[in-house]
């Protein structure tokens, strides 16, 4: 038990357990990884005609979101302003869980996406970036002569 050399912190142990489990299930991640956690949470969906990235980023000004697609790497960046009033003697902050500040997340997309056919929309605090796949990569039926 080499780990017992140091005193155990239960949260550190849980964190380690989570990483161990993750590496056990996902032993060949992409070179740029697809790190979990952090803000905003990301879901990536693949459909036959498009790849959709959902960023769960509530409370943003849509014009301040920076979405970039460069050689198959999608970057979502922006800033979430602190909405809480300045703390003084009259106000007490009881729970503080919502993150604020600058954020940036990067996703590497499949090779067959078309960088000229990207659309992004922000609705109910979810940013949806939809990237069409190239015509040549889409499934099609081949007629036999």
């Amino acid at each position, binding site marked *: 038990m080499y780990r017992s050399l140091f005193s155990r912190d239960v949260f550190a142990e849980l964190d380690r357990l989570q990483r161990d489990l993750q590496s056990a299930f996902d032993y060949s991640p992409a070179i740029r990884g697809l790190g979990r956690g952090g803000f905003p*949470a990301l*879901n990536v969906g*693949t459909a036959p005609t498009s790849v959709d990235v959902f960023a769960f980023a509530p409370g*943003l000004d849509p014009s301040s979101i920076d979405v970039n697609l460069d050689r198959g790497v999608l970057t979502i960046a922006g800033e979430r302003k602190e909405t809480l009033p300045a703390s003084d003697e009259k106000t007490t902050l*009881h*729970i503080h869980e919502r993150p604020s500040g600058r954020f940036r997340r990067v996703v590497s997309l499949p090779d067959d996406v078309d960088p000229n056919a990207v659309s992004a929309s922000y609705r109910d*605090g979810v940013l949806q970036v939809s990237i069409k796949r190239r015509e040549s990569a889409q499934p099609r039926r081949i007629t036999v002569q």
Partner: protein
Amino acid sequence: MNTVAQLNEQRDTVPAGRPEPALLPPVDVVEDATGITLYADLPGVPKDKLSLRVDGDQLTVEGDMALALPQGMAASHAEVTLSRYRRTFTLSKELDADKVSAELSNGVLRLRIPKADHAQPRKINVQVN
């Protein structure tokens, strides 16, 4: 040996009396002299899918996501794996649950619960503005 369909069915059937699993939305709670303000992150929840309930001294915030998913989409990476949020708070006596006001914008819910002069516990319906 269970088939995948059977396993999915087992997972989807909710045992009686136990609420189905939901995401716990992160919140900020600020108290000032006149009341409490609660901010909750509920990305993906439109106004009509949000429900606020006060039952006794329990305040429950619940919401379902409505995302525009393209036809035939399969998730290739998912950090958000449930589509429902739920969180319950216990209110204290001096808060007036009768006068709760709520607004939802860009996935952020802001609840204002004013303090009452006299604590009068009762059941009320909360309207979402």
